[in-house]
Structure formats: C-alpha cells, structure tokens
C-alpha cells in the first residue's frame, strides 16, 4: 500500500510541477526536504527519549498493574462475552494500559497475545471471522488513547511552538469522542445477545 502512495505522490508532483511551471521550486525542495527530515528527527529525539525513560520507571514501579486494576471494571463492560478472570481479559487490560502509558514496544506483543487468547476463548463460529470482542479490542487500539502524546508534542516543540502542552487535553477529548463513536458502531453491528 505504502508503495503506491509514496510512488504516486512523487509522480504526481513531478507531473504537476511541469504543468504548473513549478519545476525550480520542485528541484530545490527535493534537495532541502531530506535535510529538513533529519533535522526534525534529531530535534524530536530528546523529548521522545525523555518520556519513554519516565514511562519505563512508571512501568517498573507497578503503575501499569495499578492502572489495569482501575480500568478492568470499565473494560469488562466492553467485553461481555469474555471471562473476567480469563487469560484473554488479562491480556486486554495489560495492552490497554501499555498503550495508555505510550509503551508502544510493549503494547503490540501484548495486543497480539490478547487477540490470540480471545480467539481461543471464543472459538469463533464461523472460524477466522472477527467477533464483537475482537472488533472492540482492535478499536481500542486504533483509537489510541495515550496519556502523553510525546511524538506530536515534540514535533510542535521542534517547530518553535510556544505552548505545545495546550494540545494534550484536546487530544484526550477527541480520542475519547472517536473511541466512543467506534464502540457505539460496534454495539450496533454486533447485537448484545448473540455470542458472535
């Protein structure tokens, strides 16, 4: 997919530049963009490393477990078909808290484990089909509720934004709006009683 998008962007810009007579701007941008990208990466790196260090301390001091305990009553409402003491539900809780703390490297393996455990527990009929639980779980991950959106803050910071912290609360609110919309849709498409 990215193949086509990337190649498409480059081809379209070259064609468009020829037709709109922007070739000189285009060629200077080709040279400067790559350098700008490196500058961006370097200036973001400090803040990203700082936060992943802080969040590692949080994880090691048991914040993830405490958050999982706090979240499990809410999450159990989203997965009515799963055993609350089962492996699947425990993995879901750990994945959601890892996402919350922004521990991307830990969240994905936990998420994969959660998916496999859900499938085992539900043994979906027909097989290889998304169920209400797997759909809801994937949506929890695609909506990305994160305590500290470090990447975005550091992009703003590196561009010289004076108040990059102002975006934290709006990001929380709009994530929750999106998550609720998607979960409502799941509940409409997958009616309550059916064990699918």
């Amino acid at each position, binding site marked *: 997919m990215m193949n086509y998008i*990337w190649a498409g962007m480059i081809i379209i810009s070259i064609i468009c530049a020829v037709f709109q007579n922007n070739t000189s701007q285009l060629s200077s*941008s*080709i040279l400067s963009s790559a350098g700008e990208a490196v500058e961006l990466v370097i200036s973001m790196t400090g803040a990203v490393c700082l936060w992943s260090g*802080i969040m*590692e301390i949080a994880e090691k001091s048991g914040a993830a477990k405490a958050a999982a305990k706090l979240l499990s009553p809410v999450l159990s409402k989203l997965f009515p078909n799963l055993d609350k003491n089962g492996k699947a539900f425990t993995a879901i809780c750990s994945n959601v808290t890892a996402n919350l703390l922004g521990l991307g490297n830990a969240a994905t393996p936990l998420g*994969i484990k959660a998916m496999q455990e859900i499938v085992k527990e539900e043994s979906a009929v027909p097989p290889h089909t998304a169920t209400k639980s797997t759909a809801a779980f994937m949506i929890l991950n695609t909506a990305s509720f994160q305590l500290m959106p470090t990447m975005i803050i550091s992009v703003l910071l590196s*561009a010289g934004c004076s108040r990059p912290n102002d975006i934290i609360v*709006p990001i929380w609110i709009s994530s929750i709006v*999106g*998550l609720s919309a998607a979960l409502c849709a799941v509940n409409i498409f997958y009616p309550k009683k059916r064990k699918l």
Partner: protein
Amino acid sequence: MTTDLIMPVIILLIITTGFAKKVPMFSCFTDGAADGLKTMVSIAPSLIGLITAIGMLKASGALDLICSVFSPLSDLLGIPSENVPLLFLKPISGSGSLAMLDQIIRENGANSLVSKAAAVMTGSTETTFYCIAVYCSAAKIKNTGYTIPCALLGDFASMAAACFIVMNF
C-alpha cells in the same frame, strides 16, 4: 496555567511511586530512553522518504490543488482545508501523517490554530489499517467483519472533534 501542570504532575507522581517502591529509577530511565532512541532510529528512514515526497507535492502545487478540490467538503465539516490530507493519510501511515503535520506546521507557523488542529488530529488516532492488519494476521482472522468501517468511523469522528475543539475553544 493548568495545562502547564500536567507534565510536571505526571512526572512527580511517577518519581514518588518509584521512590516508594524502591525502583532503580535511573537505570530504568536510561533503559527506557534507549528504547525511545531505537524508536526514533526506526522511523527516521520512512520519515525522510515521506517528508521528501510531501515536500515535493507542496512545491509542485499539487498539494494546494488537492486541498482546493476537497475544500467544499472540509468547509462543511469545519476542518481547515490544509488539514484534509491528514484525514486520508493518518489511517494508512503513521510516518506519513507525521510528515504531513510537519509540512502543515512549516506552512502555517507553529503557533497557528491550523497547526494546532493538525497536531490534535494526528495525535488522537492510531494508524488504523496497520494496526488491524497486524492483529488480524496474528489471530489468523481473515474476515474482519465490521471492524474496519467501525474503526474508520471512529477515526473520522475524532479528527472532526479535534478540529471542532481547537477552532472553537
């Protein structure tokens, strides 16, 4: 004022629990920071490729053309027309949307409302298609059912909400 307190308060909470639990904090910190460095190294090549491609789109005039095509739709939804490409890029590519965000900030300035709206849009969802692809292949799910439409609806809702919140408050 209050938003400036979010970060210090979170750090304070984490450090004090670390103290109470007698965690080797500094070595944890350096381990985590090394992980962060790995993340940045792993996204750097795709960012270089995508920032170049988006820079080319901008310089050639194609980006403005695309935005003006979608401007009636974006006006209707209250999304700044500069930010429309994010709607399409974000569910597909994380680095792509980061590159787009960088482009928008360069054009409009880091303190403009348009840039803030773009930042909130980028931060409020994940790379939906990538995420679903990884999880479905891990669980051997071939029929995703209603997952993708529901997830895209959520992405769309959060990005529209992002613009609404930034532009109105």
